[in-house]
């Protein structure tokens, strides 16, 4: 349920993403995102059959290019003729499967059930709730034909499901005994945006889960909001090793229909931008009043129900890639890696046929041991690539551990373990691998998180004045600042630095209205200056440092009410 304004006001990362993103142009073949750039040949030992590997852009040097290369070259994503739509290849979908399985099991423990509501929405139903829809209307894709006949009234493809689901809730809920009603669905949604698309982070179709729950009391709803928020935190921190900050959205940044919105916020130090990781909203009684979701209490009175909604998308994968990736490729945390260990036998030309066979057999035996220990392992037995090429190949794909088995290892009954995240190497006797590898993977997971957490924390500057605030942003950091918590002051921040802050939301609906080429140009022009785009509140962290009474707001000077986390964001 990312709020539309959040979606709109957010920025594009894809500085270097394929040019075919521009709507209206002829669909281009997007086989390779950077087909025009010559590719550096890495590790190519000159074998004819070996394809080129590796990235030409560096993460620090050209983050946008690096990102769009790394997701394609690691075979996570394929571009496609329809701009803003991507193929999630098995290598990335496996990560989504892990996230899905973990989260699905947790919400079922909480008593949430899965269901499925249709993709197609009639115009009437979509428009039930005007304010809510206004945010989404410009982004809707419309079906206007079936077969060769025109539909009399176009049918919308869901951008989100509130208006589809809530009329049913109104029918299904009669008494307090029907509550709580806690449903979730795993689906695709389509939002036809014209902003620069970025794989995982912003795409026209994406996968997500949307939870929609109904309670008799506000207390129950409140409790769930934070339960879910904490599950989202755990998805990021425990599965993806990505540190996040839990917080409350400012009234300006919250979901339009919500009473309040909580979120987990991640941060990409390389680009100096925050990313909203997931949101958990308390809708209060706003929707239940609009849709007539009422129940009879035990005392036989009628009352409007309390509702929540919460969503997590495939954006998670993009944040993970941005956080851990390096110039060699992606780095996948062990817990979500489809392949946790790759075994690479290293035969050399001196080895006889039998010795090679013994080595391959040993590799298989090790893999079998590891598999039995619950490790996801594969053996790279390909004979048309050199070991060096294979190292690059698997490093590009971010496999957490490489297990090398060379002739000398064969002699001494050991194998070499090389970590993807920090390059650390250690030798391990065959007999100990089954015990050592799972431990090492866990350690790696923990260290990846610790490293990212340290970096995240070092990117938060506690400031109390406007100048320090600006200086923090200059350094591509977030600023934690005492704030008076008013919409006006947040506006003020956007206004003050002249080059900052042109919220996309203010002209996107305009674009929808006027529908001219000029306006499209305008979008492009402004997108091009996105480095200058302004900071906003990422959240008001749930964990608040002490705020001595009388501390002035860094914007207005009025007494501050809280510490707010500010930063540029996606």
């Amino acid at each position: 349920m990312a709020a539309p304004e959040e979606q709109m006001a957010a920025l594009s990362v894809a500085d270097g993403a394929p040019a075919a993103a521009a709507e209206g142009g002829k669909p281009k073949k997007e086989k390779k995102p950077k087909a025009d750039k010559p590719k550096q040949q890495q590790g190519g030992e000159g074998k004819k059959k070996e394809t080129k590997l590796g990235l030409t852009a560096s993460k620090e040097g050209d983050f946008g290019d690096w990102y769009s290369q790394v997701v394609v070259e690691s075979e996570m994503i394929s571009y496609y003729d329809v701009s803003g739509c991507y193929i999630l290849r098995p290598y990335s979908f496996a990560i989504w499967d892990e996230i899905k399985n973990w989260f699905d099991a947790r919400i079922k423990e909480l008593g949430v059930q899965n269901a499925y509501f249709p993709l197609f929405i009639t115009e009437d139903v979509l428009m039930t709730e005007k304010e809510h829809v206004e945010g989404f209307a410009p982004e809707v894709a419309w079906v206007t034909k079936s077969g060769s006949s025109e539909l009399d009234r176009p049918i919308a493809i869901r951008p989100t499901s509130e208006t589809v689901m809530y009329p049913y809730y109104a029918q299904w809920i009669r008494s307090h005994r029907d509550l709580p009603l806690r449903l979730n669905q795993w689906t695709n949604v389509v939002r036809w945006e014209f902003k620069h698309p970025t794989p995982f982070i912003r795409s026209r179709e994406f996968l997500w889960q949307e939870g929609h729950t109904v309670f008799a009391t506000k207390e129950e709803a409140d409790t769930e909001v934070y339960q879910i928020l904490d599950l989202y935190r755990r998805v990021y921190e425990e599965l993806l090793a990505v540190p996040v900050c839990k917080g409350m959205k400012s009234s300006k940044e919250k979901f339009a229909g919500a009473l309040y919105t909580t979120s987990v916020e991640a941060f990409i130090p390389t680009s100096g931008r925050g990313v909203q990781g997931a949101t958990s909203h308390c809708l209060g009684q706003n929707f239940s009043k609009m849709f007539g979701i009422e129940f009879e209490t035990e005392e036989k009175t009628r009352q409007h129900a309390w509702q929540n909604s919460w969503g997590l998308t495939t954006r998670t994968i993009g944040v993970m890639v941005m956080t851990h990736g390096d110039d060699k490729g992606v780095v996948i945390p062990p817990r979500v890696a489809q392949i946790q260990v790759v075994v690479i036998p290293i035969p050399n030309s001196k080895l006889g046929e039998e010795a090679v066979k013994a080595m391959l057999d040993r590799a298989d035996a090790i893999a079998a041991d590891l598999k039995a220990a619950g490790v996801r392992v594969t053996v790279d037995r390909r004979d048309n690539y050199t070991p060096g090429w294979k190292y690059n190949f698997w490093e590009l794909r971010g496999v957490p551990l490489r297990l090398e088995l060379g002739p000398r290892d064969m002699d001494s009954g050991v194998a070499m373990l090389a970590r993807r995240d920090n390059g650390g190497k250690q030798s391990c006797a065959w007999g100990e691998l089954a015990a050592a590898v799972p431990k090492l993977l866990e350690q790696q997971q923990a260290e990846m998180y610790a490293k990212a957490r340290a970096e995240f924390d070092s990117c938060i500057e506690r400031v109390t004045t406007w100048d320090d605030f600006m200086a923090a942003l200059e350094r591509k950091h977030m600023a934690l600042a005492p704030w008076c918590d008013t919409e006006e002051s947040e506006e003020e921040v956007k206004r003050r630095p002249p080059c900052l802050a042109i919220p996309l939301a203010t002209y996107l609906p305009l674009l929808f209205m006027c529908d001219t080429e000029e306006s499209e140009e305008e979008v492009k022009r402004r997108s091009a200056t996105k480095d200058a785009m302004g900071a906003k509140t990422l959240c008001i962290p749930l964990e608040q440092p002490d705020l001595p009474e009388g501390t002035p707001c860094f914007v207005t000077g009025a007494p501050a009410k809280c510490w707010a986390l500010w930063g540029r964001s996606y």
Partner: protein
Amino acid sequence: MQLTRTIVPGCLRLCSAAQRASGRQLVRRGRVALSTVAGEVATEQQQQQPKQQKQKQQQKQQQGGGGKKGERLVTPKSEDFSRWYLDVVRECQLADYGPVRGTMVIRPYGYALWEGVQSHLDKAFKETGHQNAYFPQLIPYSFLAKEAEHVEGFAPELALVTKGGGKDLEEPLVVRPTSETIVNHMFAQWVQSYRDLPLLLNQWANVHRWEMRTRPFVRTLEFLWQEGHTAHATPEEAEEETIRMLRVYEDFACNVAAMPVIAGRKSRIESFAGANCTYTIEAMMGDRKALQAGTSHNLGDNFAKAFGTRYLDEAGQLQYVHQSSWGVSTRMVGGIIMTHGDDAGLRLPPRMAPIQVVIVPIIKKEADAEGVMAAVQGLESALKAAGVRVLLDATTDKTPGWKFNQYEMKGVPVRVEVGPRDVEQNACVVARRDVPGKEGKQFGVPMEAAAFVAHVQGLLEEVQASLLAQAREFRDANIVDVSSYEELQAAVAEGKWARGPWAGSDDDERRVKEETSATLRCFPFEQPQHSGVCFLTGAPAKEVALFAKAY
């Protein structure tokens, strides 16, 4: 974009006419269009009302009506199968009608059945080396047009997106009806050498086909499914894969869904648009109609040629890949309902059942509450620990009798009853759903944890086996071997399946369909002994074909 193909006679015109009409008119036309599907219209009508208020009122009326009928919530299956089905779907809260005609909302109990299908099949796919991926839902129309037969087959059913973000799109995008085209578009880029093969992918997704005569789960405008797509170096491997996956479906149907199926090959007419050959599993529903419950297609190199999906073989020669695709959809849920259900409602095979065991405490006096509750909670946690999906219904606003009816209707395989006297004797009553009445009740089942769990688990296995046996017996009793067209007509008129040697042409097959409304379901892999003389034409026949009326 020029759309080829004439539309299915009447259907789409009626549809757009219906959409032009408003309010009551629309409902009236809807009735005309759907009059064959009894019961659906009423609920249709309900859904078409834009105002929720009206919906509510109508539902209240419906509920009121239901109450007057007495305890029974569903029309007996023996009385009116079609109405029974729709009643079961509604009363068991499996699905509701969606806002767009022909779509459905899958409610948690129905979705849990689909999740059962998903978890079993996904595991089987992964065990056979397949990986999941996700391809976009919106496909340029030009992709579909690349494979001539494919587009011809699907064009009338396509939903086309022509507007997005307030603008007209350059090219209409098709809401995927199936993904062969986009998959091949990508395969052509991913596959280079023989080392990239076989490529074995699957996706779990929603697809849309503009169907006119819809029915929850069985045929809906939008449905959920999995679609497997594979590419192989040789035709033999593609054929092997096609059969392998059909066998995966067959195994699931028989051993998990307790749904006996006949596996076989489709006739040319009934094959997938764009396939060389389609294989199918056919199941017999409670009304003896056939349900195609899963299909696996050998696509040959048809799509490979249309999309240029080629690889370099070991000799350095460019070759086209050979492909398969295969799918099972939410229709399987409809099949499970219609295979096992009885007059009282659903009967779920234990391996599929979201709730395998329901425990109902019977408390008449407050004084008994504590003892009974302690006992049932003990049983619940013992079953849970053993991995049994158990529900303890300790709600107090409904009587045990009401609960018995409710869970019977919902098809829960095993019910456990515990009253004060049972607690005293440390033994309880266990009732199985597949055997009605007293006969299905077991008294004095020990409540000691280990013994109780073992008993229940054994019983669940028995119910699973018994449902399969019942369904198989029913099916076998309703297949007639025929040696003449008259015999086939007679069998079909009785509602049975007809099986006989077949050497007819495509036109002969169409004639049988027109005259009897039975279609050629498949040439079963397991061929019975036969005369070798086509029952229709008298020509020498190599194979026996199976004919039936079908969903």
